[in-house]
């Protein structure tokens, strides 16, 4: 264990990548994640790595494709509009089964939006923002320490499944500072990549490609990918449940919003209200199990997001009609404050707040204070 250091989330993510053996970074500047490329541009040359600022996000994700295909451990980071530009490349990476780690420090949209924190890229991250039937493994860290740990894990998981992995931060996680301890990584050993295009000396030629014109073959390829995604569903789900044993009401949130909800939960429990918290850590695969375990006794789930309601759809699928699901959201960089979450929590408990479907009909998904 090394000494704790005080780090911004963005810096910590960059340092974690380097300690995980990442030696290649491609990117393009965008707020609020610039500390990642800036940090990488200082640190990578020190460890014999390559930092390259591309001419666009489009180009940078394709550099990642080339580098990953050549067997490198690669990181790319951006924020919402930049991640949108990368979707084509991400689809190619998934289709060609190339490992890489993508960080999205998301900001408010749609369009150019703003630069304040947001969780409105949940759909894009978890439902496949690009074309075709593919999945990213998506982590939603809530603390900087967790962001570090997940970054390190992300590279291994990416290599294990030959799939892109996304770390979805919510802007806040990138900008705030917390003490971090980096695990000992002196033993990091990168896996062999016999499929990589490194020159065909002494073997048959390797090909990295996602073009499969024969419908039967492409069908087979897609189902093989699905088998892989099923393995990921079985093995990689991560979540945290607080007070699952004695709670009837549950707050559901990921990322920094979960920390706000935890505060609300603690306050409510001080007041004698049995409230729990479900915090998905993998946003894909979504932790359905966390809900299945408690749904038989749950009276309601309040999903809180910095969006007009995206993860809440997965919550409803997981709950599958067995309990009402409620929603509270702020968007565009407005962060839900603990008091208004608390207010919504008590409204849910007292039956004063509509469940999600009514909510959208009556409020247009808005969330006025």
């Amino acid at each position, binding site marked *: 264990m090394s000494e704790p250091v005080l780090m911004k989330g963005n810096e910590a993510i960059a340092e974690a990548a380097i300690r995980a053996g990442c030696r290649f970074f491609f990117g393009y500047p965008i707020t609020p994640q610039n500390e990642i490329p800036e940090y990488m541009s200082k640190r990578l040359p020190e460890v014999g790595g390559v930092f390259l600022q591309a001419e666009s996000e489009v180009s940078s994700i394709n*550099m990642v494709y*080339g580098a990953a295909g050549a067997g490198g451990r690669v990181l790319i980071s951006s924020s919402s509009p930049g991640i949108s530009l990368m979707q084509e490349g991400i689809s190619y990476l998934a289709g060609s089964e190339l490992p890489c780690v993508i960080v999205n420090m998301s900001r408010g949209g749609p369009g150019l939006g703003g630069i304040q924190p947001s969780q409105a890229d949940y759909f894009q991250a978890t439902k496949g923002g690009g074309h075709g039937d593919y999945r990213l493994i998506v982590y939603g860290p809530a603390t900087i320490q967790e962001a570090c740990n997940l970054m390190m894990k992300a590279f291994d998981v990416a290599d294990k499944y030959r799939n892109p992995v996304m770390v979805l931060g919510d802007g806040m996680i990138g900008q705030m500072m917390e003490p971090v301890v980096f695990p000992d990584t002196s033993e990091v050993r990168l896996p062999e990549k016999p499929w990589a295009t*490194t020159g065909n000396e002494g073997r048959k030629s390797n090909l990295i490609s996602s073009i499969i014109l024969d419908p039967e073959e492409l069908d087979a390829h897609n189902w093989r990918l699905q088998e892989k995604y099923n393995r990921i569903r079985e093995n990689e789900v991560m979540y945290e449940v607080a007070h699952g044993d004695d709670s009837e009401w549950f707050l559901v949130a990921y990322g920094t919003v979960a920390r706000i909800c935890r505060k609300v939960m603690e306050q409510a429990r001080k007041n004698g209200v049995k409230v729990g918290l479900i915090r998905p850590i993998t946003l894909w695969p979504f932790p359905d199990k966390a809900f299945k375990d408690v749904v038989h006794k749950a009276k309601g789930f309040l999903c809180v997001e910095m969006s007009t309601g995206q993860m809440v759809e997965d919550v409803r699928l997981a709950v599958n009609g067995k309990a009402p699901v409620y929603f509270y959201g702020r968007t565009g960089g407005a962060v839900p404050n603990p008091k208004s979450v608390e207010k919504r929590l008590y409204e849910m408990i007292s039956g004063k707040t509509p469940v999600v479907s009514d909510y959208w009909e009556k409020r247009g998904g808005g969330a006025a204070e």
Partner: protein
Amino acid sequence: MKPIYQRPKSLKQVVTHYCPGCTHGIAHRLLAEVIDELGIQGKTIGVASVGCSVFAYNYIDVDFQQAAHGRAPAVATGIKRVLPDRIVFTYQGDGDLASIGAAEIVHAAARGENITVIFINNAIYGMTGGQMAPTSLLGQKTTTSPAGRDARAQGYPLRVSELIATIEGARYVARFSLHNPQNIQRAKQGIKKAFSNQIEGKGFSMVELLSTCSTNWGLSPQNALKWLEENMLPVYPLGEFKGKEGE
């Protein structure tokens, strides 16, 4: 008897999907010859683009990556930065390189990326069925310029080699034509130089090859060569725009 000419070793023993007389086949063969002569087959990585040459990896026997449309120079950059001692080339058509991938080629050149770019200019989109390319000639009829390319509506043909040659990072930029054996021989020397530059770590090289598309031009293979000579050469003059011997 002594062999004067044999099928290059780096060219796979398969029939290509190209139309009869398509000069892609010549360009592939020249690439394979150069790879053989430089002895770099085992350490060369190609980047195939989107266009008729999307399956280049089926014909040239080296490791390959298939790139998204226009992004081959970015993909090649990624490969080269991970494996600086390997030889990396892209093989791109005019739609891929001069239109959708204009930014990628310009910036790869500006970075002086130590890669080799083979640029096939046949003044039309072949793969998608004969639409207008950025390199289509004025007056040229295509499926999306049925009345002929009109400068007022569709702009002018893009002279990519001249453009890239203005970039400091570009070390070698040359245009050759594949319309007769003499020019083919010159093209091969250009390709060889572009690869040798990379081996010597000199930086970005691009070879533009004027090519035919007899199918979409609606001409016989022989007449397509003639059309190239008569119509393309005046618009796209041949020569080494940058990196001539002694330069």
